[in-house]
Structures are given as C-alpha cells and as structure tokens.
C-alpha cells in the first residue's frame, strides 16, 4: 500500500492563477481531509469528505473547492490564487468506525507570488 499520496510536492503560483492539488489513498478509507499549515502554526481544516459524493466545509474553506467522485481521490482546487494561500497543504484519510488514526500524506508546499 502506498498510503496517502499527494502531488505536486512543491508549486509556485502567480496571483490569480488556479491549480488543483491531488490526493489519493489506496486504503479504502471513507473519510478524507484537507488541511493547511501556515508557518509556525497548527493544522486548520479546509474541507473534508465522509465518502464519495459527500463533502463539507471545515474551518477555512474560502478560496477552495473540493470534489469526491471516487473513494480514492479527493482533489483540492484553488481558484484565483492569493498570497494568503501560501501554505503547506496536507491531505489525510481515516477509516471511520474501525480506526481512530488519521493517515497523512507528505504535504504540498505552495507559494503564491
């Protein structure tokens, strides 16, 4: 099992550009999450999904969109990138009801200039 994979590892965007951060898990987990981690801070939840076709907002959803068409994939879309979105983005997954442990991807460092 590869676990949770994220692409790309690094990206620099210009203000106003758009991009999609990819997240895939091969553990058949039902829950998936997107977090952002600003320098020196903890993780803040952007969006989460309880299963294919079901998503909901977290603490800081503005400027982002998600979709969950399959169990494995949970892409995060940034529209009209802004400097405030410069951060490290983590994807995570969880098999609810069977384990209480989140599995994290390695993160994507995004810089918006």
């Amino acid at each position: 099992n590869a676990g949770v994979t994220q692409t790309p590892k690094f990206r620099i965007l210009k203000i106003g550009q758009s991009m999609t951060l990819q997240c895939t898990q091969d553990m058949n987990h039902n829950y998936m999450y997107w977090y952002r981690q600003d320098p020196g801070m903890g993780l803040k939840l952007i969006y989460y999904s309880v299963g294919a076709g079901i998503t909901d907002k977290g603490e800081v959803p503005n400027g982002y969109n998600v979709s969950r068409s399959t169990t494995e994939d949970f892409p995060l879309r940034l529209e009209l990138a802004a400097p405030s979105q410069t951060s490290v983005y983590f994807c995570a997954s969880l098999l609810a009801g069977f384990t209480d442990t989140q599995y994290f991807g390695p993160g994507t460092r995004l810089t918006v200039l």
Partner: protein
Amino acid sequence: AQTVTQSQPEMSVQEAETVTLSCTYDTSESDYYLFWYKQPPSRQMILVIRQEAYKQQNATENRFSVNFQKAAKSFSLKISDSQLGDAAMYFCAYRSASERTGTYKYIFGTGTRLKVLA
C-alpha cells in the same frame, strides 16, 4: 466548539533526560479521542500516541506516555530518555468519538517545538 491549546511554543531538553509537553482542551462532549502527533523537519505527520477519553488508564508507547486528566481537560505528553531524533514539532489534537456529533473532525493545537540538546 472544541478548542485545543498548547501554551509552550518551544521546549528544550538534554539528551537522555525527560520532558513534558502540555496540552489543554475544551469540550462539552463526554467521549472523544486525544492524540499527539510529531512533525519532524521532513513535515511528515507521525502519530505518537492516542488516548480514548473513556479509558482511565494513561496510554503508553515505549518512551512516550501521557498524563490524561479528564476533569481538568489536560493531556500532557511525557518523553523519557530523550533522543536527538525526538527533536520536532509536537501537535496535540482532539477528535469527537461520535460521528453524529463530531463527524470525525480533528482540532489541532498550535504546536510545541522540541529541541534536544546533545
């Protein structure tokens, strides 16, 4: 709403000594989980230890143990025989145990940076 507070931005410990990292939380729920995650410079989030709120016994994983005080809403992490590889950011996290009430959302503290001195 639940909150998690880590009041120590940075801690230092001498190699082979013991250090305790503090975490307090606020919740109105009676059943929940608490976690400590380690984040080394590689940025990978690594689960260190977890505690189920309904269990009285403090969790232990090798050199890592917790002091869980439910009434005080305190969840500290003790690292014994500190090693250079323990140097990292440590995050405390809360999760509701009930999918109905918490939808398995995690709340993270702001972290404590641990330095281990040789």
